């Protein structure tokens, strides 16, 4: 969230006139081709097209179009939870058959007892969860979970990986709802969030990460968090003092793209140890794995 410091910096560095004519001429000089029709304001201002010069052999990865939704993207990034909520509420309904949500989860697992003379260690292991949630009623929901095989030491005695992750381990439970067909209601939404700000942030995790939470429900949660004393927004990172969990919301889409969780108070891990990170990507697709 922008604060007084950002306002002061903006005041110190005021916006100067950005001349569209100037930029159009610059574009013409650089590329000596007709402006692309769908580009910004200065397109219609540029001089008449000159001979087109093909710039060949260029491989440019433009900033990837957000996979979140193929629908129209708001052009102004959100600068607060409230704006992110509005973004979600106004987002056009996608027409694709499935919403595919992919979670990459690093979970810290401890082995042993932290006592003198005992073996104790912590290892971070990675899981991947893919959920295909259909748009059509009655269609099957498909979820795959797996240990990716990747791990790294966190501290202490390291055990063989097959002692840390069993062969049938599917990773942490990020949301509590179990459904087989669409539509599916995220059950954690039925419970009110705690009053205490830190507990509220932690409790919001299920509904913020669940693939079943609708845009409207997500937006309502954002507004509840925005109204919570002490909740901060810093360029999309939402946090509150004392909470184990923080989230990152993509200011361009309004969607949760990451969460970070630190160790509980009674854990023998050092203070501040991150015990779980979740990276979330959303896409709309007509294909599912089944």
């Amino acid at each position, binding site marked *: 969230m922008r604060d007084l*410091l950002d306002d002061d*910096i903006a005041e110190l*560095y*005021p916006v100067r006139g950005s001349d569209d004519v100037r930029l159009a001429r*610059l574009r013409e000089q650089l*590329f000596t081709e007709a402006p692309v029709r769908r*580009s910004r304001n200065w*397109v219609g201002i540029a001089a008449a097209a000159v001979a087109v010069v093909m*710039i060949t052999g260029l491989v440019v990865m433009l900033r990837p179009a957000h996979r979140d939704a193929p629908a129209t993207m708001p052009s102004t990034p959100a600068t607060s939870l409230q704006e992110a909520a509005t973004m979600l509420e106004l987002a056009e309904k996608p027409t694709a058959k499935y919403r595919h949500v992919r979670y990459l989860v690093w979970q810290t697992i401890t082995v042993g007892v932290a006592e003198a003379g005992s073996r104790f260690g912590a290892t971070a292991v990675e899981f991947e969860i893919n959920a295909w949630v259909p748009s059509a009623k009655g269609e099957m929901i498909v979820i795959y979970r797996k240990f990716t095989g990747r791990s790294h030491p966190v501290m202490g005695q390291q055990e063989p990986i097959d002692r840390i992750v069993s062969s049938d381990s599917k990773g942490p439970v990020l949301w509590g709802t179990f459904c087989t067909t669409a539509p599916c209601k995220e059950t954690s939404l039925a419970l009110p969030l705690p009053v205490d700000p830190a507990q509220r942030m932690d409790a919001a995790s299920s509904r913020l990460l669940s693939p079943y939470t609708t845009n409207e429900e997500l937006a309502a949660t954002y507004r509840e968090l925005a109204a919570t004393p002490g909740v901060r927004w810093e360029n999309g990172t939402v946090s509150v003092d004392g909470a184990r969990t923080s989230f990152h919301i993509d200011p361009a889409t309004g969607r949760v793209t990451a969460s970070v969780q630190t160790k509980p108070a009674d854990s023998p891990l050092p203070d501040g140890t991150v015990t779980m990170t979740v990276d979330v990507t959303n896409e709309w697709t007509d294909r599912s794995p089944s």
Partner: protein
Amino acid sequence: MFAELFDEHAHPLHRYLARRVGVDVADDLVSETFLAAMRGKETYDPERGSVVGWLYGIATNLLRGHAKRELRLLRTAERYGVDLSVAESLEHTVVTRVDARAHLRLIAGELARMPDVDRDLLLLVSLAGLTKQEAAEALGMNPATARSRLHRLRTKLKELELRNA
């Protein structure tokens, strides 16, 4: 394809650069940035970061050549308690009185004294609106380092503002 890159990024890049060093210099910098990008296209690796981080990284390196200008403007802003556009005009005119804004004095002074990389990090996020990740990519910094560094910078500035409020 670079034309599309220009269409998407030139305007905000120009706005950011103009705020830092003035419109005339910003014109040159935008032009040089895209020329450098076209010449150095092989250096862009999408696996390592976003195209925004890459472009602003090029622009930031070019901006370093004009650091003295920005520092001069910041020192003028600190002296008179004005913003940078007024500071720029003060360079060319004799002014008998300006309306000083104390908070601008403070911020300008701190920005003038901090290392270039810290100033760039702070302004890439606050002025240019880059994410911390993109700013880290632009500056060739580890994202975690960028986050903690930015947090430290902002905390220090906010504490100073509070003390002087």
